[in-house]
């Protein structure tokens, strides 16, 4: 994977809390000194939030469709 994608993966593991102690400290230090990284982390959190909202919307639609099939 190209470096940008490795970075997305690293931040995902960081947010999930699945990094090793050493890696976690490394990311924390980078976040502390690098505003660009802080910005990327904030954007990534927002991306997950967007997916949760879009997922819920899709689930609602699927439930509506089941309702119509069974009881409509």
């Amino acid at each position, binding site marked *: 994977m190209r470096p940008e*994608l490795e970075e997305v993966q690293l931040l995902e593991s960081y947010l999930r809390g699945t990094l090793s102690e050493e890696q976690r400290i490394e990311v924390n230090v980078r976040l502390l000194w690098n505003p660009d990284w*802080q910005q*990327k982390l904030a954007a990534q959190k*927002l*991306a997950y939030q967007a997916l949760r909202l879009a997922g819920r919307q899709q*689930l609602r639609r*699927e439930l509506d469709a089941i*309702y119509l099939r069974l009881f409509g």
Partner: protein
Amino acid sequence: MNATQSLSMAVDLLTDRDYTMERIYAKTYPMVRHYVREHGGSEEDAKDVFHEAMIIYYEKTVQQQLVLTSSVSTYLMGICKNRWHQELEKRSRNAELVDNPVDPIWEESGMEEQPALNLMTFVDQLGETCKSILISFYYFGQRLEQIAQQHGYQTVRSATVQKFKCLERLRKAVSHLSIDHFKP
């Protein structure tokens, strides 16, 4: 249904969502509808309450936060009863306020809902493939093996790479929002 059956229901829910939800729906919804109607609600109310309960059940299942000691139907019925009582209380409170003169400045602007709608637009703009991969994985909790198969990827590895490409695109798309939201 015992606890082991509930567990296999959880697995089925993630691998065959539509069929499993339909089974749960067919079994549980008539009970919910009966209850809500008996307690002053309409068919539409029953459906709303039941859908909210299904969403809670689904999200908890994906996040593995749910250890059911009873059947899925009993669990869902419990949520629906609670929610319906909360709704009734809310409605009776609102009814008490109706006679008060309403100052137009108190009308809801709809601004609260704006960010959520905006965020979802970015997901839509990713295109069908990316949208489907990301939602299947992050929201619906599907395994990457299944996602790879459904989207015609030869290996799980290539589906993983594609997933991160899509996520990076979404991250870029929302990044200007996060400047406003999270100023360091």
